[in-house]
């Protein structure tokens, strides 16, 4: 947050290092046990890495090379053909427009569902935690229960509700369902976070301004950086990786990328185009990784900034 806290942190770390008990390091001796451990860990690592390696190299191969059957071989010719095909013209069902349709659908689902779910839950959490709301206790209890209701139980009522709202089978249907299903958990997260804001700050704000929205936007929202990042990562991952809600509420027009991918891979005639499939799978997995890559850094910064204590 500022230089001073940063230098404090650095100082703290230094002290922690210095005060750590110092033992002379024992000389490493290779024993049967340590070999066993290394072998076991290597097998675990390979278990995850080998399939990933195959997926990546396959996606850069031509179909001709794939037919030769050498699964682990590097591509003879590195080509982006499969990636291009998967993105632009791979067929899912009768449509041959590639994954880009699903990608833009997913983006179109993600943005409104993020705005809706975070916008509603942050204000609800703020009101429940910091204002004297009637029946706040019972309301929280119900929210808590709702957070544990499996989606499958309420799927059919939700279908008929979205149908009567005329959003079933569209991007909006999927976005709204995502937002509603995330509300209980997000509200609880925000509420618990705001409970830690010192009561005196709220008292001061109430005496200074007294306006619910002014206090929210000027005092509380600027203090919510860390939790917003946490919630953002949580929501983006869950919305992007979701399959069930997308396949249930998306209909034909509002299918997210995951549904698109599944159709692309399972519904195909003729030879299985492994390189296309691998490229498509990677394309679907990349966006959350990119988000982690950029926001993850902020996430750590946000946690260490200690915005509340000041």
């Amino acid at each position, binding site marked *: *947050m500022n230089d001073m806290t940063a230098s404090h942190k650095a100082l703290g770390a230094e002290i922690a290092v210095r005060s750590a008990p110092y033992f002379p390091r024992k000389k490493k001796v290779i024993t049967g046990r340590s070999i066993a451990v290394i072998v076991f860990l290597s097998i675990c690592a390979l278990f995850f890495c080998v399939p990933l390696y195959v997926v990546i190299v396959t996606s850069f191969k031509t179909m001709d090379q794939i037919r030769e059957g050498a699964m682990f071989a590097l591509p003879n010719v590195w080509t982006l053909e499969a990636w291009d095909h998967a993105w632009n013209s791979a067929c899912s069902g009768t449509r041959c427009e590639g994954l880009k349709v699903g990608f833009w659908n997913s983006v179109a689902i993600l943005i409104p569902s993020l705005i809706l779910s975070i916008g509603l839950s942050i204000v609800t959490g703020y009101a429940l935690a910091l204002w004297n709301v009637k029946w706040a206790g019972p309301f929280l209890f119900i929210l808590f229960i709702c957070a544990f209701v499996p989606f499958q139980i309420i799927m059919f009522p939700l279908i008929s509700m979205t149908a009567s709202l005329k959003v079933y089978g569209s991007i909006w249907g999927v976005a709204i369902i995502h937002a509603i299903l995330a509300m209980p958990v997000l509200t609880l997260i925000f509420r618990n976070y705001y409970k830690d804001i010192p009561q005196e700050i709220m008292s001061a704000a109430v005496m*200074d301004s007294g306006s619910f929205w002014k206090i929210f936007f000027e005092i509380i929202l600027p203090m919510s950086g860390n939790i917003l990042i946490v919630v953002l990562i949580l929501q983006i991952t869950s919305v992007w990786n979701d399959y069930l809600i997308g396949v249930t509420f998306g209909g034909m027009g509002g299918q997210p990328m995951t549904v698109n991918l599944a159709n692309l891979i399972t519904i195909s005639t003729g030879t299985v185009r492994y390189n296309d499939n691998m490229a498509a799978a990677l394309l679907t997995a990349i966006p959350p990784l990119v988000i982690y890559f950029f926001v993850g850094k902020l996430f750590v910064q946000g946690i260490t900034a200690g915005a509340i*204590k000041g």
Partner: protein
Amino acid sequence: MPRVSFEHITKTYGLMKVLDDLNLRIDDGDFLVLLGPSGCGKTTLLNLLAGLLDVTDGRIMIGERDVTDLDPKDRGLAMVFQSYALYPTKTVHGNLKFGLSASKLPRDEIEKRITWAAKLLQIEPLLHRKPGQLSGGQRQRVAIGRALVKNVGVFLFDEPLSNLDAKLRTEMRLEIKKLHDQLKSTIVYVTHDQIEAMTMATKIAVMNAGVIQQFGTPDEIYERPANLFVAGFIGSPAMNLRKAKLALANGKTEAIFASGVRLDVSDYPFVAPPQNGNEVIAGLRPEHFTLAATEGAAATFTVPVQYAERTGPDASAYFSFEDDLLALRVDPDIAARLTPGQSMGVSYLKGKTNLFDAHTGQRL
């Protein structure tokens, strides 16, 4: 200008009565300190005045206005909190400005007030820093500044110095006192620290268990405590309180302790005429003893030394007297020479005794 009055205030939390039919009037320009041990209801009373809590019953008046049901921001008050409660994401300037957000002031007036308060509190160089970059004393000034800019008649302080170190506390004490003299505003100040109360207040209300035990000037409270609670609470070392029986003989009134020591209280201004054999509690301030037989003392007796404590310019000596300790304020040089077990003759000055009814605890 505002005069604050609490009329028949009752506050209950569930079944627990924190304040019961409390009445208090604060005159314009007074520096009132609400003093009492933790949990005595002093902060509750302040929060009721601020509007952060609702009264269960009764009425709060500020000037001619009944503010009992008004929102905190509409009461015309400013408050300084114990933890400073600065907005961590705003700069000092932003903190001061937000204090004015309820008032619809023109921008240049807002800036004028911020400049004025910053100058008064010497925080001008800090205006663009955030609270996290300030020291405790600076944060305290900003918190006071945020109250000052509101330009209200009544300021509330909730134990504002308890988070500062001893040196800063002394400095800030003086500054708050100076501010009060300068602004002539009414201040209600909550603390459990009797030094703060004695040095700053023009009036003190000593509270215990939700009841105001005594309301008066610092001198009145120190010299004429209204009951045993106030007598024991104010003063360090605490007043020596001992049971005694009154004896009237030969035109003299004496309090006779269990050990037979006789304390002359003939000049005590009894409210009601004393009766022979009345059970009383005599309160003897540690500083009104002398370590030598003094002419015309109220009592002179010999007691063994237990131990002595020196705190720089001051020293207290403790003697055993009737199975308990008797605290005396003594010269530090003498304290250094006292050895435990040594018997010393001590005298108590005339006209300095406090007498309380042994049953009701009220001053006689």
